[in-house]
């Protein structure tokens, strides 16, 4: 017998923005916590335990939850810290789920955040490769100016993403215009989400196409911003949800899972064996999650998707790898309007990660937005109006290697 767990509240610190020089990390987290609690009838001391996480090398503060404990309410409470790169937020939420599902706790808060203005994200990302890249110097790499080690290693996250984008376009017989189109759709979705960072109402394919190419086929307009922001969610057991008298406007966790393959780019030391655009683990994990959620045909049974796309081509790739769309058919779905908020399979009504990316929060924002869609509480016009039974939320991280998948629904899985 499994214990059913529900998300009963999702809170943000405010709108995600590029700079918050007026506050520090604890002050960034606190309003999100207050917001999540404020939406319920709970009081702070009714939270049994906290699970928290961010990408701490980006700000240069080791285990900032120690310092921030008083601000989020963690003092004199159980606290656990989880971090798994881009998928951190989803991994934190999953740990919060297990705090409840294990039967050890009833009311648990999950918090994810990033304050990108306090560090340099590119330096943070280079930190992934640094020791390995340094070691290359011992093996006589080509040091000519334009083809040096940056080219080999992929140069931060964008280099590797460009391989993936090219590979995806070839497989799907699609062109760069499809990436432009989906990028534009996300920015205009974001304009309907009061919390999103890059809000560009009516953003068009042509607007995106004007931005310069970074590494073909990826343009500046296909990349995510670096945002400051925090998200907090409250997870409770079924018994507590009943006790609190809140079982209608909640999102039930029906299935969840995570997986890791090897580092896809830059693993020059020992060769890489997975294709960047193949994302086999995403297929494996989502199948497992659907079966846990009792979903036989994800195409029929899932109404909305929130996917983690640091680069716009991934907004096309993930729905396919998640089994929501036939392989190679995303560009078609995009073109016929299926991915729009009022379409057949609304994709990232929130505007997605390419509109808002506070790394340690981003994967949890996908889950939080999925929960808001299920509850019918998405604000500012990005609520999907069709009847929603199930929503899938996806997270992604590491060097193209970690994946998390969650299905939230209106009704819990029958025991």
């Amino acid at each position, binding site marked *: *017998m*499994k*214990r059913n767990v529900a998300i009963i509240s999702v809170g943000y610190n405010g709108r995600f923005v590029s700079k918050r020089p007026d506050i*520090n990390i604890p002050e960034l987290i606190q309003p999100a916590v207050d917001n999540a609690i404020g939406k319920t009838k709970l009081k702070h001391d009714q939270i049994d335990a906290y699970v928290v*996480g961010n*990408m*701490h*090398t*980006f700000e*240069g*503060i*080791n*285990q*900032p939850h*120690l*310092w921030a*404990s*008083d601000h989020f309410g*963690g*003092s*004199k*409470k*159980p*606290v*656990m*810290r*989880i*971090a*798994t*790169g881009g998928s951190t937020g989803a*991994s934190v939420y*999953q*740990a919060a789920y*297990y705090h409840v*599902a*294990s*039967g*050890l706790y009833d009311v648990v808060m999950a918090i994810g955040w990033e304050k990108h203005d306090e560090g340099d994200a590119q330096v943070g*990302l*280079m*930190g*992934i490769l640094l*020791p390995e890249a340094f070691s290359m110097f011992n093996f006589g790499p080509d040091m000519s100016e334009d083809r040096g080690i940056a080219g080999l290693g992929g140069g931060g996250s964008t280099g590797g993403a460009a391989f993936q984008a090219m590979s995806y376009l070839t497989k799907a017989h699609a062109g760069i215009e499809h990436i432009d189109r989906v990028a534009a759709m996300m920015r205009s979705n974001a304009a309907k989400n009061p919390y999103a960072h890059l809000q560009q109402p009516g953003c068009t394919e042509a607007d995106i196409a004007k931005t310069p190419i970074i590494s073909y086929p990826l343009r500046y307009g296909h990349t995510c911003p670096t945002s400051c922001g925090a998200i907090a969610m409250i997870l409770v057991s079924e018994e507590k949800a009943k006790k609190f008298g809140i079982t209608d406007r909640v999102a039930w966790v029906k299935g969840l*899972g*995570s*997986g*890791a*393959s*090897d*580092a896809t780019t830059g693993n020059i*030391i020992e060769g890489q064996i997975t294709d960047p655009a193949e994302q*086999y*683990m995403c297929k494996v*994990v989502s199948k497992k999650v659907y079966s*846990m959620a009792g979903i036989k045909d994800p195409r029929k049974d899932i109404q909305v998707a929130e996917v983690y796309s640091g680069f716009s081509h991934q907004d096309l790739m993930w729905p396919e790898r998640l089994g929501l769309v036939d392989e190679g058919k995303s560009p078609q779905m995009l073109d016929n309007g299926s991915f729009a908020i009022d379409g057949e399979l609304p994709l990232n009504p929130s505007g997605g990660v390419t509109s808002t990316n506070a790394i340690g929060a981003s994967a949890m924002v996908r889950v939080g937005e999925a929960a808001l869609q299920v509850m019918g509480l998405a604000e500012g016009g990005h609520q999907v109006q069709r009847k929603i039974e199930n929503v899938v939320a996806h997270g992604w*991280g*590491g*060097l193209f*290697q*970690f994946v998390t998948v969650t299905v939230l629904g209106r009704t819990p899985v029958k025991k």
Partner: protein
Amino acid sequence: MNERVAVVGYKQTKHTFDSPVARERMIYELVKSLFKDLGITRDDIDTFIFASNDFTDGRTISEVYTVPRIGSFMKDETKVEADGLSAALYAYMRILSGLYETALVIGFSMAGSEFRVPLTQAYSLDPVYERPRGIINYYSTSALQASAYMKKYKFTEEDLARLTVKNLQNANNNPYAARKEPTASVEDVLNSKPLYLPIRQAHVSAYADGACAVILSSKKAAKKFTDKPVWIDGVGHFMDTYYIGDRDLLAMEHLSAAAKKAYKMAGIKNPKKEIDLAELHTNFASEEPVFAEAMGLFKPGSGKDVVKNGESGIDGAMPVNPSGGPIGANPINATGLIRLAEASEQLRKEAGKNKVKGAKTAVVHAQDGPGAQLNTVFVVRR
């Protein structure tokens, strides 16, 4: 849901101050030999949990390259950024939920040779008021605690030196310990380099290169691994407030709370009587009496008598760190997990020279943050 979870396998590296191999090789060899001991393959493990930290690894997303090294390639994997016992706690929750039957937990670091521990610790301090001033750090916090304890309970420098020697002797008999000082005397400890008095160099745990892997399993799946499961019967973890001025460094109420919670779960009413040994994560020797008393293992303020009567020695009433504890080896991220492995070994009667006779129930502790801000406690039984 699964009702009971057991430690069914464990292994630690021979910890060193300068590992001859890189971290990748270290953890691969460790997990490989653990699998071999148990006669299993990586397919017998449902979920893999790392305990590591980007700052101790000196890399962003430190598990990017270590994923395939513990057998988690194309498997379910996650990372707890805290001590390994927290990762074991998470694994325990995952198994209790009934979604997984088995889990491998691994903690490791190269604290002996790849970085200076005080530096990575400094990165976790309040960057606005404390880090730039450099007054408050992990050393000075524990020194404040030590001097408060010594003053209040007339615990002398000599008592502290005796306690250190007890641990050093235990470490000397522990084949995995990095620090071997068989001839260390009370005099030597008293004369060692003063750092933050009353803390001297000899009191500091042995930051080392090393790793520890533990396999947990549901009751149902335990038989596949061993006929000597060690049951996790109680768990608790609590965080204290951050600022030192707001804390009661002596009472350690959050540690008491964690221990009480674990005891209650395990049905322990009188820890002094019902617990046979304790493995504590102490970064400094002076923490031992403070922690042990907060956990209800000794009467508050009894440190002096405990040392005098050898109560915390291997043959004492309540052996504390029969393994030598972190005084013998402190590979950050693995240290708390090693306590679980050491306690399991004792309960399975497989400990070597440091065997505690008749041990049936043990308490295991791990900490994180300056002055043990975050504490995790396990009660394990054979």
